[in-house]
């Protein structure tokens, strides 16, 4: 008998008891749906986060004061990074790899304007910051090199900050905002960036770092230095160059812990990839348990089916069915069972993923590999758990089967 005919025969047999068939498939349906859903959501979430990180640039190096190896608190209050460091990095030879550098100082201030009072994170940055963080302005202009060197009391409002202070759609260029009771003239509004983790650049207010350090903060150190390389490939090399430059400048003894740390956005991406990958495979592993349970359910029902159809096996053997004909018939029946369950599971998983990603506003991704995995796993479950009942049917002696009551 040809395989195609066996599939049709199997479908007829399964259709004859549709409720039992569906209940039998339930384990597989749930398992496959869970695996598809988890993989899809995992990939969607990963893509959402990596997209966001990438939108801040993949060729960025961030220099922190202190040592990150002591944990995030290791950088707090450390005053080892200076504007001079940033200038040295900018002017270093060979500096061909570096496109731009921006010192960054930051603190939260009460900002008053137009009768509105908000607490905003004020970012003291260089003119190059806009290009590094792909910030464009929807009104006016960003901070210029001249305003940095001239210590201008100007400010660029983040998208949401402008709305909070002046209301939606207002023309704010030329307005005055009071940051910590000091007047700054608004020269522009940044485009909408969207939140990323715990920070939302749309709430920021940007001022020249020189002005921030002198007038607002009264400090001569910077919190971070942001470096942009010319492309992603040279990030590691550039990080090494910066490290040795700063070690020399800070007179760090050989083997001693440097008083600064370097991180690249590439690092962040790969760390994130590891975490989400781990999480996805963990959840998929749990879902796989349901597939094993589903498989056992299939085996159970197939054993019942073989017993119920003992007479049918006897009749088929009388008509000339060989051992392998019976074996294949029952095996294909269990594979058709798990494959149909897998197909329903895929439909449910994809549907649920579509719904959840739309609600959670993350990209909807169903990879071909996860579908192939689902089909493959369904088939294997059918084969593995179907072989024993099928063998039992094939081993029936024709007279015993015919006599069975």
């Amino acid at each position, binding site marked *: 008998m040809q395989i195609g005919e066996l599939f049709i025969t199997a479908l*007829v047999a399964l259709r004859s008891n549709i409720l039992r068939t569906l209940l039998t498939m339930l384990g597989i349906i749930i398992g496959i749906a869970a695996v598809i859903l988890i993989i899809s959501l995992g990939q969607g979430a990963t893509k959402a986060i990596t997209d966001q990180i990438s939108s801040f640039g993949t060729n960025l190096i961030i220099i922190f004061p202190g040592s990150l190896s002591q944990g995030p608190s290791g950088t707090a209050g450390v005053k080892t990074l200076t504007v001079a460091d940033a200038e040295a990095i900018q002017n270093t030879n060979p500096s061909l790899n570096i496109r731009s550098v921006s010192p960054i100082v930051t603190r939260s201030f009460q900002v008053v304007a137009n009768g509105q009072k908000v607490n905003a994170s004020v970012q003291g940055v260089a003119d190059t910051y806009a290009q590094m963080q792909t910030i464009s302005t929807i009104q006016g202009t960003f901070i210029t090199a001249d305003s940095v060197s001239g210590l201008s009391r100007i400010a660029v409002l983040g998208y949401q900050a402008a709305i909070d202070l002046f209301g939606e759609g207002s023309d704010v260029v030329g307005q005055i905002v009071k940051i910590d009771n000091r007047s700054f003239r608004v020269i522009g509004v940044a485009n909408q960036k969207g939140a990323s983790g715990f920070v939302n650049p749309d709430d920021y207010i940007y001022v020249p770092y020189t002005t921030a350090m002198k007038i607002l903060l009264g400090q001569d150190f910077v919190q971070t230095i942001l470096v942009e390389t010319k492309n992603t490939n040279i990030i590691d090399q550039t990080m090494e160059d910066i490290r040795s430059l700063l070690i020399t400048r800070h007179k760090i003894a050989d083997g001693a812990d440097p008083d600064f740390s370097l991180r690249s956005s590439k690092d962040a991406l790969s760390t994130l990839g590891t975490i989400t990958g781990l999480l996805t495979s963990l959840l998929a592993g749990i879902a796989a348990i349901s597939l094993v349970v589903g498989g056992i359910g299939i085996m159970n029902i197939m054993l019942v089916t073989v017993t119920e159809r003992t007479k049918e096996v006897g*009749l*088929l*053997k009388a*008509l*000339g069915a*060989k051992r392998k004909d019976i074996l294949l018939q029952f095996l294909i029946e269990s594979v058709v069972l798990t494959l149909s369950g897998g197909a329903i599971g895929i439909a449910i998983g994809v549907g649920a993923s579509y719904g959840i990603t739309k609600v959670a506003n993350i990209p909807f991704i169903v990879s071909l590999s996860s579908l192939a995995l689902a089909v493959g796993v369904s088939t294997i479950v059918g084969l593995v758990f179907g072989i024993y009942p099928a063998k039992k049917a094939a081993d029936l002696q024709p*007279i015993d089967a015919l006599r069975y009551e």
Partner: protein
Amino acid sequence: MTTKNVPVISFKNICKDYNTGSQTYRALKDVSFDIYKNEFVAIMGPSGSGKSTMMHIMGALDRATSGQYILKGKDISEYDEDALAEIRNREIGFVFQSFNLLRRTSVLKNVERPMMYANVPPAQRTERAIKALTLVGLETKAENLSNNISGGQIQRVAIARALVMNPSIILADEPTGNLDSKTAHTIMDFFQKLNAQGNTIVLITHEDDIAAYAKRVIRLHDGTIKSDTMNSKKRYANR
């Protein structure tokens, strides 16, 4: 008997033992007989006489404990399971008392089934199945599901299926056991017609008026042949 000298079926000193725990029970005791082409033999006997055992061995569903079973000149006593399956497929057409047809399967597919195992191409299968169904007058029921036809029709479909591989013998095990007497006689009439067309038929029954349709009657008792006679008062259905 007939002019042919090679019998279709030849039992030579066939014995069949069953082990029931510690005891061995001999169901057939040194049975020998020949059946030639175009015979219509009824095998009779009360329950426990060994007629079912004989049917199983003759149908290659089971093997004898000792003795030789020669089918069309070939000793198949030592054939393995798959070889016996092929014998059943090609040489023997079964008609059982009950559970003859696959449920939820069309009449046509039921008749096609033995040809599937013989790897007959699909187009040819359908053609041959329709031909066999026409012979039993059920060609119009080809697409009906087997559970939607009457008991008499089921037996006629089973006969069509038994004929479809052109077997050496048609082996009918109590084929009318589940039928009312009127239908039973119609079925027996069919067997007679098939025999007249040259088919060799072996009928297992315990009913005298069914055995009366056969040309020859073998009576079993306690595992041995009690009598083997030509039927002098052959019966025909009312036509």
